[in-house]
């Protein structure tokens, strides 16, 4: 387990930011979600060793979060949300500089800076001054400085903000590549659920300082009963009647999405048989699971 915390609590004065959070994060990419003010940043601060929890304990990569705080930062890469750079430097100098500050010897930091800049797609631009960089390039630079010292855990805070669709795609590809490389655990904090869905296998949802949900996405989103979503072409009415006569419930959303509720222990291929009988084309067929948005809303409490 790379990150393990138990009963973590923290208050800023009277405000309770975290209240008894316990979780274990293993391999793969984990999404960190929560409404604003839920305690995500406090949790990240504690995990990065900036804050000592009021109560509770934990380990990040076997370093204790109270005693070995500086050591944690050796093996963790952090990609901040807000813009950050140092004026007057070029990308190589910048990346190598922060690599050195992480503890890399100067020459190693230089070599590694070049490698990492190529990896994130800034190879051609690496000698240019940072002041000339576009928003997308600055975003990749942030990723580069987080990777230069080869961290074992990567904390990414809104990594796709300010990027155009191409940029978003590329950064997501990079993150997917990094997280599928099993030895780097990625913790992704984002408000864009589509990103989390496409990259993370597990999620942690915080709300009002407490853990609202945690686990593998597939498990959290699974629905016990058999619900299938379909899109058809053809006589929907006949199809519907056919299925209903077999004990299924069929609904249609305003979006022309057909939802079929099947009784327990039924064979999903019955749907295809019904389609065959009524001459209908099935163009989309998916076993329903709760959408991440609904999971979030359900767990955080919608008003």
């Amino acid at each position: 387990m790379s990150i393990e915390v138990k009963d973590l609590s923290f208050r800023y004065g009277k405000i309770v930011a975290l209240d008894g959070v316990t979780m274990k994060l293993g391999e793969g990419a984990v999404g960190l979600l929560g409404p604003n003010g839920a305690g995500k940043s406090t949790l990240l601060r504690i995990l990065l060793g900036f804050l000592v929890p009021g109560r509770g304990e934990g380990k990040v990569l076997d370093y204790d979060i109270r005693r070995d705080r500086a050591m944690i930062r050796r093996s963790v890469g952090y990609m901040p949300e807000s813009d950050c750079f140092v004026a007057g430097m070029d990308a190589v100098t910048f990346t190598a500089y922060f690599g050195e500050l992480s503890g890399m010897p100067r020459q190693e930091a230089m070599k590694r800076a070049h490698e990492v800049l190529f990896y994130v797609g800034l190879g051609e631009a690496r000698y240019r001054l940072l002041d000339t960089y576009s928003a997308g390039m600055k975003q990749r630079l942030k990723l580069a400085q987080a990777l230069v010292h080869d961290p074992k855990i990567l904390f990414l805070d809104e990594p796709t903000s300010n990027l155009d669709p191409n940029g978003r795609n590329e950064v997501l590809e990079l993150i997917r590549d990094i997280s599928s490389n099993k030895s780097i655990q990625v913790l992704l904090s984002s408000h864009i659920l589509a990103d989390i869905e496409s990259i993370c296998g597990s999620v942690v949802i915080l709300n009002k300082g407490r853990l609202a949900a945690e686990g593998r996405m597939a498990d959290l989103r699974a629905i016990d009963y058999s619900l299938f979503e379909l899109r058809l072409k053809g006589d929907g009415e006949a199809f519907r009647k056919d299925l209903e006569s077999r004990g299924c419930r069929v609904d249609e959303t305003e979006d022309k999405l057909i939802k079929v509720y099947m009784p327990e222990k039924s064979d999903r291929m019955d749907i295809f048989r019904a389609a065959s009988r009524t001459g209908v084309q099935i163009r989309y067929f998916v076993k329903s699971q709760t959408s991440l948005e609904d999971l979030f809303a359900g767990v955080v409490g919608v008003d």
Partner: protein
Amino acid sequence: MTAVIAATHLSKWYGNVLGLNDVSLEIEAGITGLLGPNGAGKSTFMKLITGQMKPNIGTVTVRGRKVWNNPTIFAGIGFCPEHDVFYEEVTGWEFVTGLLRFYGYSGSDIKQRAARALDIVELTKDKDRLIRGYSRGMRQRVKFAQAIAHDPEIIVLDEPLSGLDPLGKRKLIKLIKAFRDEGRTVLVSSHVLPEIEALTSRIVLVHQGKILAQGDIPYIRELIEAHPHMISVRSSDPRALAARFVGDRSIQKMSFAPDGRTFVVETHKRDDFFARLTGVVLEGGIEVEEISSPDDNLQSVFEYLVGK
């Protein structure tokens, strides 16, 4: 459908930097998504529509009337910019009421409208706090409040969802849809394509100062001939399934995914494929887990048209 916003041969440049190049298009009531890579001309277009800039060539009209230098039109347009454009030292209330003054409403009217707008975005509790102390999400919401306070018929939103948490996004999406249901016209620009898809299926894609595509997403997808439709079928026996389709001449490409259960087909004749699929599956006794079209979405349309 009559056009609400119409642009005719619209061109704008800044010195020799191109903004828009001979753009002609019509936007109808309802929600229209505006997308494009950075520097494509989206913000130029929005600024021209909201009367912040004068076109070099061409015109942009709202319900037939030119926008530029026409203050009477501004009352019918609300604009929510991407960046924070605040006076940090005023409260949310002062900000919204201050801007309302420009529209010439009476004092009590202003108060009422501001209160309503702030209530809609759920900032009533914090309206008397300085904007300097607002969180990112709150700033976004007060910008939105300012855009709707004067009850405009047309609302232009630039990245309205950025900075909001998932619930905030959901609420705002509902709100925008409510505006659409009231008959208003909303133009939303965003880089997060899944979020545009959640709002509307009608888009305008801008690239290098020109309109690359306009209309319904599935319709546009259909038109992209260079990329046949992708259909993905996950089942208990993908190879058996593939075997039965191999002879089908309308299929251009077949591949198998690493998971060992998914078979992906590319074809220009989706109808033929789907017409046969049910039969094939039942005949072969194959257990189907999932059927989907992986590139029938806005992200793929964007990639195919704009590329890398």
